[in-house]
């Protein structure tokens, strides 16, 4: 019968299998699609919550499909960090599906709605597969599933430009996947295994630390995954993609896809290659340290100069990815856990910001910042949620953004890299410049009389935004829970 560890496979299977049924549901009745996907993702959410409980109480789950022993079976694994990622994925996909119920009404034909939800569920399943894989090739397959569905999701917006931005994303993403596959090939040719732990063992056993092929594979995999995770010099697809895509997709993409990629990047460089290679032989952590400094400052400056709010949020994402990478660059236990905490916080904050912007887009169809004049009086709740998330990104206590930024600054001081603490401080001020501009315009300027018909968006749009905004504050107080989970996982990551 079903043991508790068997549930891990269901996190992948439930969304993937439901995705295949959704075109059928769309054929029968298009309103059914939303209900079916909400139902399926709710089941996954319950399963992942249960899994989180098991993992916290009993430790890491290792599961071998086909029942063979590790080198021959496909291993999937969930430690505390993985479970948090799975929870974030499922929660955000669920909220996106609820959010889309009214948002996509009138934007797609009835038949296309089924495909839209199918793609979102495919994305959720692929993400979960990508996250829980403990073997480098299954990671690649999950990466491809999620990439192909995200290219399509970005391209299917009704706007004309969306197709071009989706095409650009596809071209860059395809090069990234090819590089990743090539890196996997180099790893396999040298070690003869694909399992993460096995790879790490073999690299040490066969004394491959200085082998050129292993270092080439490191370069290829880091480059490939950096394209997917929009790390600074490779971020160019992101602003174009987000400015044209549908708002729920922006939230999903900047909330979880880039995060999952960066999560897997960190996981691979630490578990497979080990600290000796990435710190001494090829100083990837040092490279990441300086890249993150440039990304944080430049991303903020780019964001200030934007007039389109979606583009602004996209550049803000570039800067926030810099913070996560800064955690790797500091490369102490504290720094890495602060980086991961910021990863989860960024999921919540950025999704909340995009959801709030989407509420405005739903009612007024505007994305230029100057048009936000007086919106706060018409849509007080939406803009309040927006402000909470914005304050969180700036790093005002008692929100979650403050906690992770403070921890990052503390960690960089602790590692005697005080320069980066200053960068965090400057970047917070820059963040404040562009977010307070919007808050100011929307609440404190404009007349009340014009356009009386503008009111709050429907509840299915408002409630997901509200949930995320409240989570921002809750995690600001309850941060020790995720932090302790992350720290437990990181103990085994850095040895």
């Amino acid at each position, binding site marked *: 019968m*079903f043991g508790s560890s068997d549930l891990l496979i269901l996190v992948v299977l439930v969304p993937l299998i439901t995705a295949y049924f959704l075109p059928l549901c769309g054929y029968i009745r298009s309103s059914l699609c939303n209900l079916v996907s909400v139902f399926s993702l709710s089941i996954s959410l319950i399963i992942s919550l249960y899994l989180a409980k098991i993992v916290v109480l009993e430790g890491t789950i290792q599961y071998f499909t086909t029942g063979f022993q590790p080198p021959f079976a496909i291993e999937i694994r969930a430690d505390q960090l993985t479970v948090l990622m799975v929870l974030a994925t499922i929660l955000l996909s669920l909220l996106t599906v609820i959010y889309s119920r009214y948002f996509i009404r009138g934007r797609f034909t009835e038949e296309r709605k089924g495909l839209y939800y199918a793609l979102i569920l495919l994305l959720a399943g692929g993400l979960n597969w990508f996250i829980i894989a403990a073997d480098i090739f299954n990671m690649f397959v999950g990466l491809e599933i999620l990439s192909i569905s995200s290219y399509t999701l970005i391209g299917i917006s009704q706007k004309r430009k969306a197709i071009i931005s989706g095409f650009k994303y596809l071209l860059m993403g395809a090069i990234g996947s090819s590089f990743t596959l090539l890196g996997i090939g180099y790893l396999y040719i040298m070690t003869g295994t694909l399992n993460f732990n096995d790879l790490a063992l073999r690299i040490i056993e066969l004394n491959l630390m200085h082998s050129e092929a292993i270092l080439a594979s490191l370069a290829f995999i880091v480059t490939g995954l950096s394209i997917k995770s929009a790390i600074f010099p490779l971020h160019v697809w992101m602003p174009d993609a987000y400015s044209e895509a549908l708002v729920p997709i922006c939230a999903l993409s900047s909330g979880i896809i880039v995060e999952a990629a960066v999560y897997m990047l960190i996981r691979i460089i630490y578990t497979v290659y080990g600290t000796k290679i990435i710190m001494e032989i090829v100083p990837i952590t040092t490279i990441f340290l300086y890249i993150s400094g440039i990304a944080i400052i430049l991303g903020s400056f780019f964001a200030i100069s934007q007039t389109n709010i979606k583009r602004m949020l996209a550049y803000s994402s570039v800067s926030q990815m810099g913070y996560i990478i800064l955690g790797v660059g500091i490369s102490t236990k504290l720094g890495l856990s602060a980086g991961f905490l910021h990863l989860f916080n960024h999921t919540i904050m950025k999704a909340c910001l995009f959801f709030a912007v989407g509420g405005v887009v739903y009612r007024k169809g505007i994305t230029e910042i100057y048009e936000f004049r007086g919106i706060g009086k018409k849509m007080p709740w939406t803009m309040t949620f927006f402000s909470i998330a914005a304050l969180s990104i700036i790093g005002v206590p008692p929100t979650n953004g403050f906690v992770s930024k403070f921890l990052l600054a503390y960690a960089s001081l602790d590692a005697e890299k005080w320069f980066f603490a200053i960068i965090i401080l400057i970047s917070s001020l820059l963040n404040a410049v562009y977010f307070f501009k919007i808050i100011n315009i929307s609440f404190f300027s404009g007349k009340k009389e014009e356009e009386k018909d503008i009111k709050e968006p429907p509840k299915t749009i408002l409630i997901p935004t509200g949930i995320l905004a409240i989570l921002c504050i809750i995690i600001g107080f309850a941060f020790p829970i995720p932090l302790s989970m992350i720290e437990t996982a990181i103990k085994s990551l850095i040895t």
Partner: protein
Amino acid sequence: MPADRWEDVIAQTIARLLIPMILLYGIYVIFHGHLSPGGGFQGGVILASSVILYSLVHELDQATKFFKKKFRVILEPIGPIIFAFIGLLCIFFSGNFIQYSKLPFLGDKEMAAVSITIIEAGIGVTVMAMVISIFFSLGGRNR
């Protein structure tokens, strides 16, 4: 634009002879996949290529009559459903996911062979429907 209907007697006759053989070969590749080269994916693509050949020598609309959208949408989930069902059945009989040898119906190796064949057949159907769908939606009329 040239005439809308374009028919070639030679191509149609040869296609009529070839299509049954392609279908037979596709089914062979699917069901013999665990003993010789081949399997669900290759066989599915070969099956789909017969339909593509048909729609190349005839009109596309005529082929879409055979494979209506409703039909394709029903065919598509078959493979994943069978795979998930058999995989979860193994968990039900206290094995791991897709641990065929735990299934109690036949001996260890026979059960593995039988379940792999069933799964491959399902995958073949799914791949066929998917490739045909891609072909029709890419080659269909502009909306």
